[in-house]
């Protein structure tokens, strides 16, 4: 009886979480302009439209460019901080870490106004760099957390052993530290990439008219009424998310990365 209750609870929540995605995915396979669920005469016609439409494709590739560069920039900020905390126990680095955490925890509408005001003030409004750097800073708390975890997982005995055997600092960094920390850097990259890809309000406020990423394009289309191509965009982003986080689960220990107990 108790077990049945658990299964019902999990099933209901799984349906709640999956239903909107299933409905949108279903609608994307319709063959007509009309919204039908389940789809009638399933076809890929809207996928062809999506990939054949320069406007959708440019929004999609723009999103990818922004997300890749934001992920790299974010890790370039996070890596030195995490290293300085681990290696030098630097106070300054700890202060930077809390600054990063705070900016991640602020209401996103407030952040979007903050960045809008900032980029307008330095006279650099509406450029792609604005979106990239804003995302890099807002999401830096994530790579900071994963990379910090990577450094903490290094067994100091290994480092000592390498030194005893005559390895220089640079050798230790290359042969001992880098291989251990690398998977954590990759998962940090993935987290920022996916979140930046999907972020709407900051991207819209700082450069939405010039740099139309996919979420912005979907939102703009939303006002003009329903189009099945929007569903294609949503399906694409869902698939990217599942693939990316599955990759993280394959290269690393996902439950541990999320702070859970390690593999038993």
């Amino acid at each position, binding site marked *: 009886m108790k077990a049945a209750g658990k299964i019902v609870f999990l099933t209901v929540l799984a349906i709640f979480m999956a239903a909107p995605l299933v409905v949108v995915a279903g609608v994307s396979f319709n063959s007509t302009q009309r919204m039908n669920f389940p789809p009638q005469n399933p076809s890929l016609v809207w996928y062809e439209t999506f990939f054949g439409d320069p406007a959708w494709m440019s929004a999609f590739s723009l999103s990818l460019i922004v997300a890749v560069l934001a992920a790299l920039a974010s890790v370039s900020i996070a890596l*030195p901080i995490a290293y300085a905390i681990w290696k030098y126990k630097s106070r300054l680095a700890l202060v930077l870490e809390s600054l990063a955490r705070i900016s991640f925890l602020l209401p996103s*509408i407030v952040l979007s*106004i903050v960045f809008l005001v900032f980029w307008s003030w330095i006279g650099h409004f509406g450029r792609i760099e604005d979106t990239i*750097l804003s995302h890099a800073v807002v999401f830096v708390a994530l790579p900071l957390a994963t990379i910090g975890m990577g450094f903490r997982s290094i067994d100091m005995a290994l480092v000592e052993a390498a030194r005893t055997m005559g390895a220089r600092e640079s050798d230790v960094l290359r042969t001992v530290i880098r291989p251990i920390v690398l998977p954590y850097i990759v998962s940090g990259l993935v987290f920022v990439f996916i979140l930046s890809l999907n972020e*709407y309000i900051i991207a819209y406020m700082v450069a939405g008219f010039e740099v139309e990423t996919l979420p912005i394009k979907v939102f703009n289309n939303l006002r003009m009424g329903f189009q099945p191509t929007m569903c294609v965009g949503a399906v694409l982003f869902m698939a990217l998310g599942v693939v990316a986080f599955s990759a993280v689960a394959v290269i690393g220990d*996902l439950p541990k990365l999320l702070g859970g107990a390690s593999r038993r």
Partner: protein
Amino acid sequence: MTAVSASRLRLGLLLSWPIVALAGLGAVPFVLLLRISLGQRDPNGMYLPGITLNSYGALGEPELLGALLDSIQLAVIVGAISVGLGFPLTWLIARMRRRLQVAWLIFLLATLSLSDVLIAFSWQVMLSKRIGLSNLFVALGLMDGPESLTPSAGAVIACLVYLVLPFTVLTLFPVLSRLDRDLIEAARTLGASPLKAFASVVVPMTKGPAMIAFVMAMVLTVGAYVPPLVLGRPQSWPMAVLIGSTALAGHDLPRASAMSVFLLAATVLLAVGAFQATRMRKS
């Protein structure tokens, strides 16, 4: 150069880019936000020089106070539902076989990362007259005819819970996954009822993280712009939507800045209040 100052120099060089990035893009813009909130509206630019409290004075308007109350009410409701569902969900996920656990985590991370635009759009489709839930209700005999279930407060809450729930689970996952189940077993062996064991072992250990999850849910809700705009009734639009329209449609940056400062202050107070409440119960 001494060894100490050399290592200081190295540290400084190492951290120079993070400092520039985080101070330049994190701290400076906030000072700017405060400054502009004290400026006067410039229809052709950002703001006019000089200091005025006009934008803050406008915060007393009943429309804005109502929107702030709507924001807070929404935050508390969404926070309570998310933690109420998220706690048992995380509890069960933490006890699953590893493969199932990883599958759930990937699923939750994928939905967590999905743009709020796409999720709000999905809910709009789900609640539409043509193919939405109301058709299911009609089939079940609960409703007479299909109708659109948006805009409504229920739609906004459902969509926000959907957005926030994965965050709640991921916040609670570390503590619930490391919770020593032997302690509960021990309490049960010593004759405590399941409820008593839960209250005396689990609650004290998870109260803090549960409150963090609740506050995080509230912050995410307060900051959400798209779901209430797309799914909510215009007369109950929360602060976030009004801030967005003041900045974008109204071109009034001082006023949007003042509203942001106001919303930020309210959020911080809400968070501090929530943490204070847990601490008081402890003593």
